[in-house]
């Protein structure tokens, strides 16, 4: 479920980063000091390492050709509590991104929201907890685990579809993408639910105190309600989104805009002084002045120029490392 940068627009990435940062700041503020005892910290570390390792194991989903992995956030929340679980999930996603390049850097916010905030702050407190709070039994733990995991994974997948569609990079229509994603993630959710249930049942039988402390934690001890946090998150999302869209609209380069202008045969004009300035610089330094849209008369002209220019750049870019390596090798041989 890890999203990659290549399918994300900067606006969506930026908004999600801001929202996930707010959620994590809330978690840091709201965690009680006694929750971070000498015993709890290594458990958080081990659980994080376990989830990290579990996410590496991809299982193939029959008939789809796709593969999936468990998210593990519900398991984490059940063992360490929802707020520490959010921090651990964030740390896992950061490590995956910065040490394994799994999931993008700009997509960090999206991944934290989809795999951390949704299961830990929405599904766990509102689905898992109410079921097991009535009385902790193995049956209740199993039902809560399966239900929560299915909902958490499905909601996470829904968020992926939403973020990708809003980004507008992929051509997949929202409904088609949703229809492709949801059944796959329903299967992943069921597998995750069964795995979570079997692990939690075992842990509860052996060491009930591990789960009791996580479940019985009063969620409102910080004085901030999760509902308030969600409202804050929505406000941050709207504000950042609005701000980014204002910035983005000052530099339009959308395809529809171009097509509309070009299809009607009008010359494309710009009213942006900075872009005009950059165009002048580009024209003065460009080795192919005909590349300018204002002087295009021949249908194949600029495309061919673009192809030749692009190909040359590509070749030079590929040759550069070879030249650097050659000089490095020569220098090394001289030293030896």
């Amino acid at each position, binding site marked *: 479920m890890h999203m990659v940068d290549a399918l994300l627009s900067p606006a969506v990435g930026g908004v999600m980063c801001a929202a996930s940062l707010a959620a994590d700041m809330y978690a840091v503020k709201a965690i009680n000091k006694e929750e971070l005892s000498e015993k709890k*910290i290594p458990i958080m570390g081990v659980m994080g390492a376990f989830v990290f390792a579990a996410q590496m194991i991809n299982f193939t989903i029959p008939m789809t050709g796709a593969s999936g992995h468990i998210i593990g956030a519900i398991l984490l929340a059940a063992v360490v509590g929802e707020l520490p679980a959010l921090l651990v999930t964030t740390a896992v996603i950061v490590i995956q991104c910065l040490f394994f390049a799994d999931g993008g850097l700009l997509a960090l916010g999206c991944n934290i929201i989809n795999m951390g905030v949704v299961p830990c702050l929405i599904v766990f407190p509102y689905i898992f907890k109410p079921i097991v709070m009535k009385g902790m039994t193995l049956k209740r733990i199993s039902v809560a685990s399966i239900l929560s995991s299915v909902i958490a994974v499905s909601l996470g997948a829904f968020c992926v579809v939403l973020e990708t569609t809003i980004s507008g990079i992929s051509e997949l229509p929202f409904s088609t993408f949703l229809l492709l994603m949801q059944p796959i993630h329903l299967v992943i959710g069921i597998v995750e639910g069964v795995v979570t249930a079997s*692990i939690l049942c075992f842990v509860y039988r052996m060491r009930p105190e591990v789960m009791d402390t996580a479940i019985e934690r009063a969620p409102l001890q910080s004085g901030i309600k999760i509902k308030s946090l969600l409202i804050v998150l929505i406000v941050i999302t709207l504000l950042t989104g609005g701000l980014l869209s204002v910035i983005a609209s000052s530099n339009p380069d959308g395809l529809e805009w171009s097509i509309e202008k070009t299809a009607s045969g009008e010359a494309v004009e710009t009213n942006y002084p900075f872009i005009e300035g950059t165009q002048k610089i580009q024209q003065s330094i460009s080795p192919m002045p005909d590349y300018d849209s204002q002087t295009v008369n021949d249908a194949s002209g600029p495309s061919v120029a673009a192809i030749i220019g692009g190909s040359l750049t590509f070749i030079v870019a590929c040759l550069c490392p070879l030249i650097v390596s050659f000089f490095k090798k020569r220098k090394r041989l001289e030293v030896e």
Partner: protein
Amino acid sequence: MKENIRQIYALEQLSSGQTVVHRIHAMAKLITTLVYITTIVSFDRYSFFNLIPYLFYPTLLMALSETPYGILLSRLLVVLPFSLFAASASLLLERNSVFMFLGLKLSYGVVSFSVILFRSYLVVMALLLLVATTPFVGITDCMRRMKIPSIFIVVTELIYRFLSVIYDQTYSMYLAYSLRKQDTKGLALKDCGSFTGQLLLRSFERAGRIYTAMSLRGYMQKTEKTGLIKMTRGDFFYCTVSSLVFILLRLLAVDSFRSFIYGGFR
């Protein structure tokens, strides 16, 4: 899992190199990578030629840091499927032809498909090169510099270090399991829950002992008071110049993109 953990430590081993790229401050590399990725993803899905100049960054960085291409490529192949999935959709859904190339009629889908894959290649390579040239300490140092709460940094460090604990524990438990059940291959489904639960409980105890030993040796004090490595003028220079180049390439590309589409449509 064994292979993945081996790959993580392989990348970490690469990060202990002594080349000019390794010597750049982690913060400078992180900011540069972020600007690089942001500028790349800010292009729309038909800007193929505008992305080509960005190829210089990963190729030069790879050569200067002496990072083997094979390791990066193997990681790249693991990360790419989702992009491939989205790119294939463009190939199928956008059939309007955009221009002729070498006698072939190319559709928007083909352009979009190539752009998604190319930009995926660029951003993943940039990220992998950041990982391969920056040691773990450098990243956590970055986090401290950004005033990220210490609990988060401690958890991040512990997760990374406890991966080996989980791996060792899994290996020894699995060895014991397979010796007891010689006739069965792999882990029986009915034993999965108890095996994993047992693995967690054992790892909790072992991690607790390790953490106590770390604390007794002043780990928490060290994390609070550790001296941050300062950025030099060279680091600032690298970060500023690279970022400016990326941004300039992005701004200058506006016109060329427009003329490319313009020409293609006529």
